[in-house]
């Protein structure tokens, strides 16, 4: 249960520490980046683990009780909030914990594996975490928009950081189109604000419930339309998927791990807000389900035709985003649980695959199935880990992907949508085929020329530790799903009760 505290200590720290770290490492550029960045990432991880639940009303203004016209700092007493409200509950706990774990490994890998002058890049990693944390914690439409805006800009920076022509193209394309999405979210916010007068999401919903929308439903539909646009851009849903998949494919794999975590957080956060705000309108859920199904199918088909392992993963991330949004779009208890659980699982198993992909850079940087051969001989560990990651991503027990996909299938069957349940199965099988194709060519296929370099490569220990930790997490959640579900179920019940 969320405690009735409106000044929870941890919430500002989860935003301010990454921001200050980003400022410092960007300024220092080279000197002392490593200890500062790693210690900050560890502190953030610790805060995300030990933080109690509660609210934070930024700037310390109370809520106004409309009946008694008195001000209160007690979040349990209803009132229209004057402050900007953030929530740290079970959902935020699990999501921010996983993101901060990925952040820690990303930061260490950057300081070890990248050339000098990493300051701006590491600053962007911290800012990306900050924007993700804000998106998942904030209960305010206006601030959500700002967080999505800053998140989009950071995505551009992370993609462009390698300085290659492909990454520049992907980054600038995404930057250009995300400006449209950001503007769309701003328009949506303006319409909801015009209708209700409140940017606090709970207050706006309360107002809509109390006073109804009457003839203004058209306005709410238009607001929903713009919200969907932003949801598509933020999460890379079809038909906008090429923009996001290009960003995933063009970034360094560890950066992509953090980017995909951010996308999943955005999909969950914005999806839940859409359900809460617009769920009462007819056809809203149908639109969400339709987009999800299209994304699942297009993503996996595109993954099948890729010849680069990075791009295979990039399109699979897109495809599996469809699982997340499908669950949320169903709007039922099982669907929501399955969707959010899938987001958590997806972040974990995609991180395994992306860290394995990062390892390929240490074997010469070739990730194309036409250029890289026989890596299994050079590193049986990476080959095994990649296969385990692929099994997890394909929803095969005892890994975590299985648990969330089975919940999603059950949710679809319960809603009378057996065709979508079959589609989930088909996407899972196709995921396995797409990954296995890449794995065979890169890890198992013997070299065509005999003069291939067979010298041993020392992989960074932290990379190996990271892969092992995420595999263990995947197996533990696969065997004991309650470890994660106990965080998700109360949130889903609360969302549905509203």
């Amino acid at each position, binding site marked *: 249960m969320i405690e009735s505290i409106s000044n929870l200590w941890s919430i500002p720290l989860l935003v301010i520490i990454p921001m200050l770290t980003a400022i410092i490492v960007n300024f220092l550029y080279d000197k002392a980046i490593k200890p500062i960045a790693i210690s900050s990432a560890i502190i953030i991880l610790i805060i995300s683990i030990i933080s109690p639940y509660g609210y934070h009303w930024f700037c*310390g203004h109370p809520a106004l009780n409309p009946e008694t016209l008195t001000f209160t700092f007690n979040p349990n007493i209803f009132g229209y909030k004057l402050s900007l409200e953030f929530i740290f509950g079970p959902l935020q706990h699990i999501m921010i914990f996983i993101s901060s774990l990925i952040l820690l490994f990303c930061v260490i890998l950057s300081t070890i594996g990248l050339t000098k002058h990493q300051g701006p890049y590491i600053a962007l990693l911290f800012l990306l975490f900050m924007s993700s944390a804000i998106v998942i914690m904030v209960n305010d439409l206006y601030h959500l928009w700002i967080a999505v805006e800053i998140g989009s800009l950071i995505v551009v920076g992370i993609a*462009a950081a390698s300085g290659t022509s492909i990454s520049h193209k992907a980054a600038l394309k995404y930057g250009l189109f995300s400006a449209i999405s950001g503007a769309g979210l701003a328009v949506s916010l303006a319409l909801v604000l015009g209708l209700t007068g409140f940017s606090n999401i709970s207050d706006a919903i309360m107002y809509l419930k109390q006073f109804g929308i009457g003839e203004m439903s058209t306005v709410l539909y238009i607001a929903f339309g713009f919200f969907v646009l932003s949801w598509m851009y933020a999460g890379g849903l079809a038909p906008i998927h090429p923009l996001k998949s290009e960003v995933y494919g063009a970034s360094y794999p560890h950066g992509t791990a953090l980017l995909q975590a951010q996308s999943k957080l955005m999909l969950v956060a914005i999806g839940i807000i859409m359900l809460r705000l617009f769920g009462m309108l007819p056809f809203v859920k149908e639109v969400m389900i339709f987009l999800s199904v299209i994304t699942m199918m297009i993503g996996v088909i595109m993954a099948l035709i890729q010849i680069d392992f990075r791009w295979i993963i990039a399109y699979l991330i897109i495809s599996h985003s469809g699982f997340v949004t499908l669950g949320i779009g169903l709007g039922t208890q099982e669907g929501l649980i399955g969707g959010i659980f899938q987001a958590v699982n997806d972040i974990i198993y995609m991180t395994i695959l992306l860290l394995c992909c990062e390892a390929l850079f240490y074997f010469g940087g070739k990730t194309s199935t036409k250029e890289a051969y026989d890596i299994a001989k050079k590193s049986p560990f990476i080959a095994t880990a990649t296969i385990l990651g692929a099994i997890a991503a394909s929803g095969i027990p005892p890994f975590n992907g299985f648990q969330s996909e089975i919940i999603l299938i059950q949710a679809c069957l319960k809603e009378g949508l057996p065709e979508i349940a079959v589609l989930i199965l088909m996407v899972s099988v196709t995921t396995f085929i797409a990954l296995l194709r890449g794995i065979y060519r890169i890890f198992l296929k013997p070299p065509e020329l005999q003069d291939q370099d067979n010298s041993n490569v020392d992989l960074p220990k932290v990379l190996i530790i990271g892969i092992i930790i995420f595999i263990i997490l995947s197996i533990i959640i696969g065997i004991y799903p309650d470890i994660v579900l106990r965080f998700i179920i109360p949130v889903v019940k609360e969302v549905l009760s509203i």
Partner: protein
Amino acid sequence: MEELKGKRGIIALIALIIITIGLLSSLEKLTGRVNPGISEVYNALAYLVAPNNLATWVYDWRGFDTLIETAVIYVGGLVSALVIGRGVVQMKKCKQESPVTSKPLEFRVESLTVILEYLGIPAAILLISYGIMIVTGSSTSGGGGFQCGVIMTSAYLLAAILYGKNNPIKFGKRFIIGIGAIGLGGYALLGLPGYLATGYWQYNIGADVWSLVPSILHTIFGDPFRLSLILKEGVFYSTPGIVPLINIAEAFNVIGAIGLIYFAFLYGWSDEGE
């Protein structure tokens, strides 16, 4: 624009028409029916903080919003410079394509007229002075840190355009990055006193609207900016508290961010000397 030709272009056009019609009809429906909601409460309480209601909204009621918005400007500068070449990173262990670089702009100042040559510097100095005036009076006037930052960087750009690379207001890259760091870092840290005193990040302990802090803190952060408002109803005292300080931090941040973008585009980027 090639991608918008053919079927895609037609689909995009139809989508644009639908969106435009939907948006216009929504705005028409909302005309005269916009719900004031929480803004009525904000306005009713505004007199307790800065005389400039806008400054109170932006830096007090919604002060944390503005911090993250300010961070957007900072990130904009960071990413723009990165695209030009600052902080481009490559994997140590593998060969990659050489980073895309962009050449600095060519400066041709030979054709500068005598009038521009002699008036350019005074104009730039006037712009800087105007920026300082705006930011120092931000809690009582309509201006603020953002405007100050934009005006000051305009002076920087003006000097660069008129006098070329060796202009009189040439800031070094470390200096510009440092200005931005002081700005955003300063703004973020101005939330700390309120956090330590009340548990609420960025509570304006100088204004102390809700009487949450000891009077000594209220005095320390409030008195330097206390104003007496002489109105026909009588004389009222109010203080914007930390709002003027936030405005100054905001100005630094904007100068740093926009200055960095100008610098990167004007001079290109070389990691030497960093």
